């Protein structure tokens, strides 16, 4: 559905994206993560045809992103990373204007629009210049979803939303996903990506450094379990199967296991008297930190 091939887009300050390659299949939710300045928004702007790449082709449903922008926009919904609307307009006037600019039949769109406004508790009577950051974000979400597009490109869609609205947004994404929508979502909020996305691309300094489905990405990592034993366990047995561990007391351990050997660990532990078995789940965040190291921890 969305395909980026060997694409380079360089800015005069040396930043940009370099030899980028990735695909988002139909019906898939693709999480695009990386810190600020890594090239997420640049990629998205290139996909929308706001800036052309120096090299390579990007297509959406077979349409060239640089040339067929108008045709792409018919099937696309977009939430920009930086919201700047016509400040002097009221919310509903803006949505009306966008509907007219899209040329969609009012009747069809109105129902979806009303349900979105209700879901996000948006006050559309307000002038945009007087809206808070979160309100504007909600307005952007409504504008992007109200024509029921089959592809959605969302640039940090939940920034500025309060936790309740973030949850409602995640629900919306899951609903749209069930309805077969193709979604590309950039984010630096990991739990939201974990909950919604099938696959994740991690971008750093304009290059994708890891691209995998969520399950593979997580299982490739070392899992850690906090285990409390009733009697001191047979440490030799654990060592023999190659599990490393950290010992807190003679009965409290943190045991590490590669993602694909958890079954084996369970078998080994079956011979012991286990009182507590807690998985110390590694989040995407930790995976992410592994790639970014100290630099990201500071931020």
């Amino acid at each position, binding site marked *: 559905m969305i395909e980026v091939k060997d694409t380079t887009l360089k800015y005069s300050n040396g930043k940009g994206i370099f030899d980028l390659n990735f695909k988002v299949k139909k019906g898939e939710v693709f999480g695009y993560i990386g810190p600020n300045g890594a090239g997420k928004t640049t990629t998205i702007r290139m996909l929308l045809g706001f*800036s052309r790449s120096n090299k390579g082709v990007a297509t959406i449903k077979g349409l060239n992103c640089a040339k067929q*922008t*108008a*045709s792409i926009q018919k099937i*696309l919904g977009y939430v*920009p990373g930086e919201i*700047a609307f016509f400040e002097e307009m009221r919310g509903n006037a803006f949505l009306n204007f966008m509907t*007219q*600019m899209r040329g969609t039949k009012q009747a069809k769109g109105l129902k979806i629009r009303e349900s979105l406004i209700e879901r996000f508790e948006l006050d559309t009577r307000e002038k945009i210049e007087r809206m808070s950051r979160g309100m504007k974000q909600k307005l952007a979400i409504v*504008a992007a979803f109200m024509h029921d597009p089959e592809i959605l490109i969302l640039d940090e869609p939940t920034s500025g939303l309060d936790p309740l609205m973030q949850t409602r947004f995640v629900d919306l994404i899951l609903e749209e996903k069930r309805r077969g929508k193709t979604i590309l979502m950039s984010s630096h909020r990991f739990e939201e990506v974990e909950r919604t996305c099938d696959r994740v691309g991690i971008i750093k300094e304009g290059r994708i450094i890891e691209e995998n489905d969520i399950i593979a990405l997580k299982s490739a990592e070392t899992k850690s379990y906090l285990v409390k034993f009733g009697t001191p366990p047979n440490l030799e047995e654990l060592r023999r199967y190659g599990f490393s561990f950290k010992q807190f007391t003679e009965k409290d351990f943190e045991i590490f296991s590669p993602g694909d050997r958890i079954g084996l660990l369970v078998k080994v532990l079956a011979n012991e008297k286990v009182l507590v078995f807690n998985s110390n789940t590694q989040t995407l965040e930790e995976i992410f930190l592994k790639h970014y190291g100290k630099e990201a921890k500071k931020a």
Partner: protein
Amino acid sequence: MSLPLFLKDIKNNIVLLLVFGILMSIYLSVIIYMYDPSGAGALMDMLSLLPVRLVNALGFPTVDTGLTGFIAGLYYGFLIYLFPMVYCIVLGNRLVAKWVYEGSFISLLSTPNSRIKIIVTQGAYMLFSIILLFSILYFVGIGVSENLFKGLLDISVFGKLNFSACLMTMAIGMICFFFSCIFNDTRLSLAFGAGIPVLFFLLNMLGGLSERTAFLKDYSLYSSFNGMNLVSGTVNAGTINSFFIMVILLLFAGSIAIFQFKRLPI
């Protein structure tokens, strides 16, 4: 052309148009009111007090004694450059660069409309509103003249005068529009969009000061338009008009071409 966008342009900029339309109409009415059919009027007396060179620089040449010539000399000699120029500068910047700079242009481009369509709409509004401005002047001019000095105004010549002045203003408007399309930053858009018309204006004025500075006029777009010569029929209106039309078309095409391919910072 996108109709909803065109309507939005009207809504956003109608006040600007009305302000200029009203100001210019008042000025035109006052000038017509000052006309004295017997020849010498209060304004003539005032002008005769000023140094000849200053009067020439301001573009008030030897004043024709007919009403049409009087209007051509006093209104279409100086004011017709100044007021519409300011209008074009403000509007040109508003139509493209301001939205690009603020980022709201993103909303337009996230609808199924190509950049060409959007820019053509914005340019069309620029030209349309200038036509409207000059239509107002045309009808106000005729209305006031017929009321005060029935039958004295040569309507066909006054029409020609307005038509050429309108085309000239459209050319200036397109200069402003062109720079509005090139630059993503309103400061640069305004610097060039205002700088170049003002430069033309100054060159035209300085060129009128003396014989030795007359060559400066050759570098100004404004010098192609000379109200007095149009009234006396010493210049071919067709040549001037086609020159302006060429400038308008070239700049419009240039604006579209540049805007279509440029990287937008939004």
